[in-house]
């Protein structure tokens, strides 16, 4: 069965600093990969996704992620963090399971941004 690991439960960065959130997955083939963001008290918003092709994908809000097959990773990056980026970030793997696709989520990384 597939699984997703987000090794960092909580990360704190200063505003304007660069950011990298780690995500590792376990799956026998190349999965569909996603990053979602959840602002406090809000639902999950899709940041970006990787299906195939270019391994560096661009998303909304200036985020990007790179798929590295050799490392089974899909890390999320942003060159300069804004205070509004403070939120919880979830990595997810989508695989075909029976009649539809199933999303398996990591447990999330909480991002705090210091002024």
């Amino acid at each position, binding site marked *: 069965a597939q699984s997703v690991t987000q090794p960092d439960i909580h990360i704190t960065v200063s505003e304007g600093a660069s950011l990298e959130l780690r995500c590792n997955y376990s799956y026998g083939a190349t999965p569909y990969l*996603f990053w979602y963001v959840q602002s406090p008290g809000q*639902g999950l918003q*899709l940041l970006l996704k990787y299906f195939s092709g270019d391994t560096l994908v661009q998303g909304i809000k200036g985020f990007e992620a790179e798929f590295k097959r050799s490392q089974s990773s899909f890390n999320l990056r942003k060159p300069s963090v804004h205070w509004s980026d403070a939120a919880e970030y*979830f990595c997810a793997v989508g695989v075909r399971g029976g*009649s*539809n696709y199933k*999303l398996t*989520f*990591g*447990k999330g990384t909480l991002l705090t941004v210091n002024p």
Partner: protein
Amino acid sequence: IAGITQAPTSQILAAGRRMTLRCTQDMRHNAMYWYRQDLGLGLRLIHYSNTAGTTGKGEVPDGYSVSRANTDDFPLTLASAVPSQTSVYFCASSADSGSVTQYFGPGTRLLVL
């Protein structure tokens, strides 16, 4: 704005009571999902529906039931709530069962006492 709406936003419920969480989408998506989010456990799938008239069980279906009478609505019912069902519940949808990208509603925060 097109999307998913959920009601209520939050609810405090006495154990043993029946509760229905509502979910409506206006994107004409065929597939819909219910997840629960618990601290340290991430999101777990409760039930899903590939199309109107069909439903299926997810990872944690016990204590919950769903129905899908039409494309837009996918209510989740707790027949007799228990404290372990205290959670944040998210409804999601995808264009169809062949689409892997899911879009989420704002969630319902439920406290069962």
